[in-house]
């Protein structure tokens, strides 16, 4: 038992954070929201640092990393309010990767299972995978517990779980999209209408993909909550009312202490859930499904609660000033609400835990 982020992992996350601080500032985020367009060149730079190919083996030109690194990057994405289908694409890549290389290794595990192969798979699969781990195409997966594909407007290919036992892969021209408008504007949740067939079936494990997405969303919740807390701490130190800084008020202190407690008690659980996913085949037989699902669900439930609490107290401690789209805080509050509610909200995951207790 060694619960510590390695220095390599930390370096990788820090590099990503630096990239986002430089290229995805709150001004960039605002521009992206207002113009309804991606931040220029950002996807390219994310690709350049290898972040799109965490789950591809080194032989395939990827990094051969695991869900733990995914979680660290998603935390940074949350902190930056990254307005890109980064989680969705990453989950989709992970599905394709293990369909193509079922024995694919990662840093923590020599075996790897979960993603099934279907014999008559699409011939172009390797080529699509190639493009996906570079920046040429964007993939979006469905979530078996949702009708919507986030960032469906940006996707070139869809991985769709028609039934819980495998995915179908379809190009955007082969499907009909019903795009919705989200309070988290860049997301564009999209309902995808399509005709599943033997020709489109590619295998994969939707339940595993869901767990990956849930851990990723939990990490986004953490990063978002932390950013909301940090921003609010700075604000209440500066803001004066009744002749003194708002941050001297004990009520404000306790609101923010509660947010800190909530984040600090969710974070290790998120990392633990990511590790359980990464090492799902090395766990003792018999415990696997239950332990992994429960670790993921407690992580997502607690991280969702932390994000919601952080958004609530950030708004309350800012007061009216944060109740407008003119204040940058709105991007993070909206991301908090939506990340907390996506890939299963707290109620969904508590219910899942309850069913296995």
């Amino acid at each position: 038992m060694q619960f510590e982020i390695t220095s390599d992992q930390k370096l990788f996350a820090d590099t990503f954070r630096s990239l986002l601080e430089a290229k995805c500032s709150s001004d960039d985020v605002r521009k992206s929201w207002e113009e309804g367009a991606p931040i220029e060149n950002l996807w390219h730079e994310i690709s350049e640092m290898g972040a799109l190919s965490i789950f591809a083996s080194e032989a395939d030109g990827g990094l051969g990393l695991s869900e733990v690194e995914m979680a660290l990057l998603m935390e940074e994405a949350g902190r930056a309010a990254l307005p890109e289908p980064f989680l969705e694409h990453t989950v989709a890549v992970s599905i394709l990767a293990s369909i193509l290389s079922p024995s694919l290794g990662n840093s923590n595990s020599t075996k790897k299972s979960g993603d099934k192969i279907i014999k008559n798979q699409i011939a172009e699969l390797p080529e699509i995978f190639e493009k996906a781990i570079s920046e040429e195409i964007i993939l979006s997966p469905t979530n078996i517990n949702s009708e919507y594909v986030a960032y469906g407007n940006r996707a070139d290919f869809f991985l769709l779980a028609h039934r819980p036992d495998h995915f179908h892969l379809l190009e955007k021209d082969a499907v009909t999209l019903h795009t919705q408008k989200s309070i988290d504007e860049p997301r564009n949740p999209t309902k995808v209408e399509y005709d599943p067939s033997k020709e489109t079936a590619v295998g994969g494990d939707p339940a595993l993909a869901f767990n990956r997405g849930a851990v990723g969303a939990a990490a986004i919740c953490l990063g978002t909550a932390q950013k909301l807390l940090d921003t609010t701490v700075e604000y209440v130190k500066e803001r004066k009312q009744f002749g003194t800084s708002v941050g001297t008020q004990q009520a404000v202190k306790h609101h923010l202490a509660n947010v800190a407690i909530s984040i600090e008690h969710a974070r290790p659980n998120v990392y633990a859930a990511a590790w359980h996913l990464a090492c799902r085949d090395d766990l003792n037989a018999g415990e696997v499904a239950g332990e992994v699902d429960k670790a993921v669900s407690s992580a997502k439930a607690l991280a969702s609660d932390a994000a919601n609490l952080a958004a609530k107290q950030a708004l309350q401690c800012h007061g009216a000033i944060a109740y407008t789209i003119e204040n940058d805080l709105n991007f993070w509050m909206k991301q908090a609400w939506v990340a907390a509610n996506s890939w299963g909200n707290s109620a969904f995951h508590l219910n899942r835990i309850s069913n296995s207790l």
Partner: protein
Amino acid sequence: MNLKFTAEENKFREEVREWLGKNIPAEPLPSLDTAEGFELHREWEKKLFADGWSVPNWPKEFGGRDCSITEWLIFEEEYWASNAPGRVNTNGISLLAPTIFQFGTDEQQQRILPKMASGEEIWAQAWSEPNAGSDLASLSTKAIADGDWFILNGQKTWCSRGAFADWLFCIVRTDPESERHHGLSYLLVPADTEGMERRVFGRLDGRPAFSEIFFTDAKVHKSNLLGEAGQGWAVAMATTSSERGLNLRAPGRFMAAADKLAELEKELSASGQYSKQVANIWAKSRAYRWVCFSAAAKLASGGELGSTASMMKVFWSELDLELCALALEMLGDRAELMEGSPDAYNNSSWLDDYLFALAGPIYAGTNEIQRNIIAERVLGLPRK
């Protein structure tokens, strides 16, 4: 103690229900915080007024029906249960009107109240300033007397309905040497005053719900001074007390919302996992109803609510938030969908209500300040 409604009260309820049944727009109106929606809501106010329903608890001479507080509570129950449109002139009717009744001259009452009741003039509150939020007494907008006029310079913000309102009610500093609560005055300002500019800005949903107001040598006639010059703080606090009390949030709103929440649970959740929370919210909405009837009895027998209003404000604002958040939790994936999404549930009304509810613990004195007031004024705990 008798909680039976009288025959008159029952008849009143029937009348309200019947009128609403016949008159409510077939389609929900667009948000009142859009240009189009604002005018459509103004039309609705006119319709209410035409039949005496816009301000039923006002005296008949100003367009009301002289109804009792209990009848007003009944009106609100029926109004919100019927899914009637939101009220675009709430700020005028709930916050300003009680002050005009108390401090306005006959001329002011005659000039202002009927047009407020009819929706001809829609009012916005312009109190806060960038450096005067919860701490309102630190405001600095100046209004210097010059003959029959006041000359205004300064900036107001967080002016709700300020994008399209016809009039503003402001607190300004008429004594430039004064500090804190002294030297303030309560001034009514036409929105077309020369030297006044407004910059509209968006709420969390992006709708133009607020404006910033800039005064640059803006001239306002002294006939628009409400109460005495220099007494603005006392006059304003009278309004604040209304804002926190019965007039702002009738229980009918929360009763109707709790009933809708229970319906939503039936529709969406088979597992019963939300049933305790729904029942708790339902019970709180009814508890708030009894609190309001109890407060009405107290007011009717000449009593005052005092700091009880602070308790009510904390209670309803947190109930509202809890209620909307639970609805969104039940909606799951669809919670995030905004108006205009093909799949938005009930035209995204729960999300709209949630965003609106979020402001509740902040405005009219944050709930932190309310709790200080309760602790110090109701419980008698020491300030320092």
